[in-house]
Every structure is written in C-alpha cells, then in structure tokens.
C-alpha cells in the first residue's frame, strides 16, 4: 500500500497567536485507511484538517513550517482549488456549506468549477445521489432538509469532485442521533470502498471501526494506534479531554478481563467468564417518584402551529414540572422540544391549551415578569453575547429589569462564582473559549435568579472536560433549589444528570418518567429513533439500576 498523506514536521501558528496551533506534526496515512482524530477543543484538530487541502496556509495567514504531501503533491505549493480535486473537506456547520437552490445544483457546483463537461457532471450526480440516499430529494431546496440529510448533501457535494481523500471535521456534532447514524453509515460505506478517510469527532464510539486513531493534545499528536489500544488507554484519553468509552471504563474498574468496544462483545465476555448475575430490576413506575415539591409549570392540552404553516409543531401536550426537578427533554430534531420549551418562558403563545407558570397562564404575564422566573439559555451563546466586558454581559438582564446598582454587583459576582468565572469581570467575552462563552451565557441568565433554568443543547460543541464542568454546575444549581430543564441530543448527559426524562416524537410526548424507567424502554425509544448508550443498554440487559459507570460499579460490587 502506498501513502495517501504524509505530514513532515508541520508547525503552524495563526497570525497574531503566540502559541502554534500545530506543533511538529509528523505522520502519514496509508491509502484506503480510516483515521479518526480525537482530542480536546483547541487541540488543533480543525487546523490539521484544513492544512490537508491548503486552506492553511492559503486562506488563513500565519507562520507555516514543514511540509504536507498528498500523494506527491506538496499542499502549500498548490492552490486550494487545485487541491480540491484530491482532498474533499466537509465542515461541522452544514449551513454555510450549502448555498445552492437545489440538491442537484449543490452537487454540480464543484464539478462546474473544475470545468467538467455537462455530461460528466450528470454522470457524477447520478452516481452519488443513490450512494447517499438522496435520489428522491434531487429537486429539494437544501434549507428544507433535515440535519442528517443536509450533512449527507454536504458530503455528496464534495464527493462529486471525486477526491481520493475525504476529510470530515466533526461532521456529526450538530446532528441528532438519527442524523449522526446516517452520516456514520456513509462513512462506513466509503471505508468499504477503500477510500482514504480522516474523521475528527468528539465521540470515541466513532473510532471503534477506525484503522488508526490519533489522539491530539495541545497541537501535538500524543498517541496513535489501533482503536483497541488507544481507546483502552484511560489515562491517555483523559489527558486529551476525550470521553472514555463507558464499557471499557466499567471493565477496567471492575477488574474484568477484556476491553470490549461494543455491547455484544461486552455481553459475550460477561457470559463467557460468568462475571455478573442477572439482577431482577423492575424499573420504578412513573407514578412512584417525582412527587416532591409544588407544581411550578403545568402544561394543559398545548397545541402550537407556526403561523403560516398548517402543520402543528405541538399536538396536545400535557405535563407538570415540580419545583427542584432536573428534567431532560429528548427527541429528534423537529420533534418539538425547542418549541415546547419556548412556551415555558412565554416566547411562544399557545395556539390552543395553556401553560401555567406558578398557577397563572404565561399569556397573563408581561414578558419581563416571565424572564425573572424562567431563565432560558439559547443553544448558541454567540446569539446573545454583545457587551464589551463579561461584567456588562452578566449584568444586562439585571439592568433591563431595573435592579439597583449595589445589589447588581453582588448578583454579578455571585453568578460568576457559580459558573466558575471569578475574576473574569473585565475580560472581553468574544475572546473567551466556546466553553467559557457558554458559561457567560449561563451566568447572565443566572444573575436574575430565575427559579427555572432552561438550557437548549448546553453541551453541543464542548469537549468532555467542558461538558462535565457545565453539567456539574447545573447539578449544584439544582441542589440549591433551581428547577433545571435541559434540551439535549446526548443520551449520556441525560442518563447521568437528569432524574426525569421527557421523550418527544412528532409534537407529542412519547415517554415521561424517571430517567431509569424511560431508558429501560428500548423499544419505545426506538420509535423516536433514539437508543441509550452502550453502558445503559448493558445495564438493561443485566437488570441493574445503574445509569453511569460509577453507579454500576457500586451496584455490582455491592
């Protein structure tokens, strides 16, 4: 086999940055292999991706040393447009990648730039449409597709350039579980076709099928090897801010032989070595728990249709949320989670039915009164940050609600302490990392001391360490009496932190009850195209009560 990519002592620093984003990268990729790159945020993964097709150093200016070869082409010596014939790049954000008015034209854009004749463009479109399962969508407008379809289209629009190498930078981060599965299925097919693939991802599950896994840390490749070896190196993964696969962590903690990468492997290991007895778990019925506290939010027969659209986004929701609960709202994109949550703070008004906040309909409140009671953190912190200093940002809510100055200082300090950003008052929010900006956004909502805190996809785009810090903070807020509701795609986050799960599908509530009970209903979850993490599925098979590695170890060791 010959080399598809070779990187020779590559060091790169963005202009105006002291510390290089990549430091002395030395590596190669064989033709036809799948390499998965894992690492903390800011480790240089994206920079590595863009250095393979020449965006670095042609688009971003900076200090560039070393050489990158694609076959025998030196990347820095060729224009990005020339490199695009050899290296296809797919980005995390699908929106900016799709700019044409229909699927066909999106796929034609690359070949048009290569000045291919019309017949050849047609041949390529006809080849890749069925390959990515997009035939029935050829005349559709990209904006009208689902997340998974959009990312598949982004991949296909790069594939029509027929590059030998495909590089995907976090292609599944913004997707719901079904979309993620769709994209990974495509990656597997490409792998079977013996294409050279490099995928950056935050989830180690992706790496299970890789030929090689690279771990990145602070601009360097700290370890590489086959998945079995890299994924079972717990200290190595933790040092790089990568989540340790639950099953491996469990086996190591229990001192069991073997390091299973998937659930079937784990079950057969357990049976073979007779490691654990099946317990007789009867998950608690929904009515037995969750009865503490007064009802703070009550939804009665809620129906909502977006104006101008006949389709109902919510079709008859009934539920009750009590003071001090920690609730996870889960479901696919378009199942109505965000629409429902926006009713809780009065951003949307019911088409039928009502939402009672502390016994009074949200429509009877003024918007500002609702804002005091219900804090809502949007998915993207950059949608709300606009002040010059962290202090002003956090104080914004208090100012607009007209709080007096002395108490404002106290409140701001308190909120920053809660999110672990003491001493950040004078910093410029835009210069902070994504994880820190997310926390500023939470602090700015917390400063108002809302009783209910709603967070839309709080962990998206954060690495393992940042996720953990944010979720632990929410847990401590919950312990201090705040009612917390998160909207999330991450079944792991829901399993670990939420006591109650509400599963939505097509504008209705499919399951509502204690998380342990809900996650035991694997068949019902499948109806919503959801499946719990391998660890929870193992827990279901073994009949244990645990939802996390720690709980499982305690339970099994007795």
């Amino acid at each position, binding site marked *: 086999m010959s080399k598809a990519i070779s990187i020779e002592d590559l060091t790169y620093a963005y202009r105006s940055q002291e510390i290089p984003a990549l430091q002395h990268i030395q590596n190669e990729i064989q033709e036809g292999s799948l390499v998965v790159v894992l690492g903390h945020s800011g480790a240089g993964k994206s920079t590595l991706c863009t250095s393979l*097709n020449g*965006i670095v150093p*042609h*688009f971003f200016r900076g200090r560039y040393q070393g050489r990158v070869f694609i076959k025998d082409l030196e990347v820095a010596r060729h*224009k*990005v*447009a020339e490199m*695009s014939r050899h290296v*296809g*790049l797919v*980005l995390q*954000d699908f*929106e*900016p*990648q799709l*700019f*044409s*008015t*229909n699927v*066909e*034209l999106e796929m*034609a*854009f*690359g*070949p*048009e*730039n290569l000045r*291919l*004749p*019309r017949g050849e*463009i047609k041949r390529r*479109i006809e080849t890749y449409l069925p390959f990515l399962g997009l035939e029935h969508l050829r*005349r559709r*407008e990209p*904006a*009208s597709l689902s997340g998974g379809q959009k990312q598949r289209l982004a991949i296909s*629009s*790069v594939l029509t*350039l027929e590059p030998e190498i495909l590089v995907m930078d976090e292609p599944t981060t913004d997707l719901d579980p079904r979309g993620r599965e769709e994209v990974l299925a495509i990656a597997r097919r490409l792998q079977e076709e013996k294409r050279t693939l490099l995928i950056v991802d935050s989830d180690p599950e992706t790496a299970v099928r890789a030929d090689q896994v690279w771990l990145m840390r602070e601009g360097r490749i700290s370890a590489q090897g086959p998945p079995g070896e890299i994924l079972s190196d717990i200290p190595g993964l933790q040092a790089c801010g990568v989540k340790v696969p639950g099953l491996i962590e469990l086996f190591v903690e229990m001192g069991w032989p073997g390091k299973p990468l998937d659930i079937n492997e784990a079950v057969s290991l357990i049976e073979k070595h007779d490691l654990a007895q099946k317990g007789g778990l009867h998950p608690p019925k929904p009515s037995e728990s969750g009865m503490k506290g007064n009802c703070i939010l009550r939804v009665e027969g809620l129906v909502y249709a*977006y104006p*101008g659209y006949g389709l109902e986004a919510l079709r008859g929701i009934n539920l009750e949320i009590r003071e001090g609960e920690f609730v996870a709202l889960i479901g696919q994109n378009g199942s109505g989670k965000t629409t429902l949550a926006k009713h809780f703070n009065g*951003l949307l008004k019911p088409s039928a039915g009502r939402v009672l906040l502390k016994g009074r309909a949200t429509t009877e409140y003024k*918007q*500002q009164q609702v*804002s*005091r009671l219900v804090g*809502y953190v*949007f998915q*993207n912190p*950059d*949608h*709300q*940050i*606009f002040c010059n200093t962290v202090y002003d940002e956090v104080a914004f*809510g208090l100012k*607009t*609600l007209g709080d007096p100055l002395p108490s404002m200082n106290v409140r701001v300090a308190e909120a920053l302490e809660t999110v672990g950003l003491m001493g950040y008052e004078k910093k410029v929010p835009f210069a902070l990392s994504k994880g820190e900006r997310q926390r500023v956004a939470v602090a*700015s*909502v917390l400063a*108002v001391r809302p009783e209910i805190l709603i967070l839309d996809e709080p962990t998206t785009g954060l690495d393992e360490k940042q996720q953990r810090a944010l979720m632990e903070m929410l847990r401590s807020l919950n312990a201090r009496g705040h009612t917390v509701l998160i909207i999330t795609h991450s079944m792991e986050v829901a399993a670990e932190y939420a006591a109650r799960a509400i599963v939505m599908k097509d504008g209705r509530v499919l399951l509502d009850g204690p998380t342990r009970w809900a996650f035991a209903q694997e068949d019902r979850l499948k109806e919503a195209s959801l499946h719990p993490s391998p660890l929870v599925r193992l827990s279901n098979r073994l009949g244990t009560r645990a939802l996390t590695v720690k709980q499982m170890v305690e339970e099994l060791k007795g």
Partner: protein
Amino acid sequence: MNIFLYLERRTWVHRLDPRGKVLGVLLLFSLCLCFNHPLYMGTITLSILGIGASARVLFNFWRLRFILILLLIFGTLMWPFFAKGPTPLWSWGPMVVSRESLFYGIAMGLRLSSLVMAGLILLSTTRNEEMTHSLIGLGIPYPVAFAFSTALRLIPTLAGAGATIIQAQVSRGLDLESGNIFRRMGKFIPQAIPLFLYAIRYTNLLAIALESRGFSPGTKRTFYYELKMTPKDYEILVVLGALLAAALYLRLGMGLGAVLPGRL
C-alpha cells in the same frame, strides 16, 4: 421556515431563458415608467398581475402584500403634496391638492407596486444559479454576478439569525413591549453586534467551503443547467419591445397617458 422567494413550479415563465427573462423584466420596468395616468398605469399593473397569476407566483405577492399595499398607499398619499396640478380639489392653509396631483399620486402608487411585482416575478421564477448564469450571459463578470447572488442568499439566513438573537435577548429581559417606536428601535441597535459577528463567521466558513469545492474567482467554469434562447423567448421579447414602442409613441407622439405631462 421558508424565506426564499423562488417557487418551484412548471410554468411557461419558469421555462423561459433567464437572460431573456432579465431583459423582459427590464422592458416591463420601462413600460411602468411610460405613463402617469392611473388608467394607463392601472392597465399595466393588471397585466403584470396577470403574468404573475399565469406564472403561479401570486403566493409571493400575498406574502409581501403589506409591502405592496404600503407602497400603493404611501404613493397615493405622498405625491399629491409634491406634484402641483391646475384644478384645485382641496386645500388647507398652504397645502393644496389638485385633481391631477391626486391622480398622479394614484398612478405613482401603482407604478411602485408594479415595479416590485415585476421584480418579484423574476425572483420567484428564476433560481439563484440561473440568475448568476444569466448575468454572466449578459456580460457581467463572474465574481460580480456570484457576489450578487450570494448576497441575495445571505438575506434570509441573516434574517433567521436576527430573529433568534432577538428572542435570546427578550428572554434575558429585553423589553420590546413598552416605549415609543423610537425607543424600541433604539433597543434593537445593540443586537446588531452579535448579528454582525455571526455574519463574519458565516461568510468566513462560506469562503472556506467554496474554496474547498474548487471555486476560485476569475476563472472560467461550466454550468450544469443549460441556457438556451428558444423561439418563444424571442417572441416574448419582440412583443414586449413592440408594446414599449407603442407606449412611447402614445406618450411622446400623441401626448396620451399623462395627467401631468411635464412629469415622468
């Protein structure tokens, strides 16, 4: 939410060559400028509505009805104060409105909304790519044409982001319900900052995506959809051209179709 104007339909207007369509709309624009008598102008407005109906894009007229009606009303109300005519109709202090200037106002209102409707027909029946392609066909350099069509595409994206940003601020207590219109407008200004940063980030990523797919400005490219002027395209251009010539003759040669002959 769909905020794009293009409507996927199969009508004769959609099938026209986009270059011909751009020229045709320019001819329609010129026709709109020929008369300032409400009856003549009204005939043109009705014809444009008719074309819109047969192109099955009335849905877009309906979506933008507020703008169209606003243009109509404002034109009708504002112009009489600026254009003076000989037959006084109504006066209050120094303000005089004449019969002619009222008619002139109505014609101007009709003209403005007709111009917008003609433009809407073009945008609703022509894909962005076809538009770019036709602009190139009409002699405009590719980078300029591409920038134009990308700008058109960015508007709905930014509008969507803007709506989210406002919602995020409202949930933080931004009060958009009280105060007069100017104070409320003032509260919107800070929201431009996140929107601006979003736009910068978005266009940066867009540029990366474009380059990664082999785009480089200034070089030649092929087009997947073929442009072809058919006899029908020429027929329509000839008919519109003849109509324009006739209109010009009516107005300039015979002095018809104008309530205030000295004005456009």
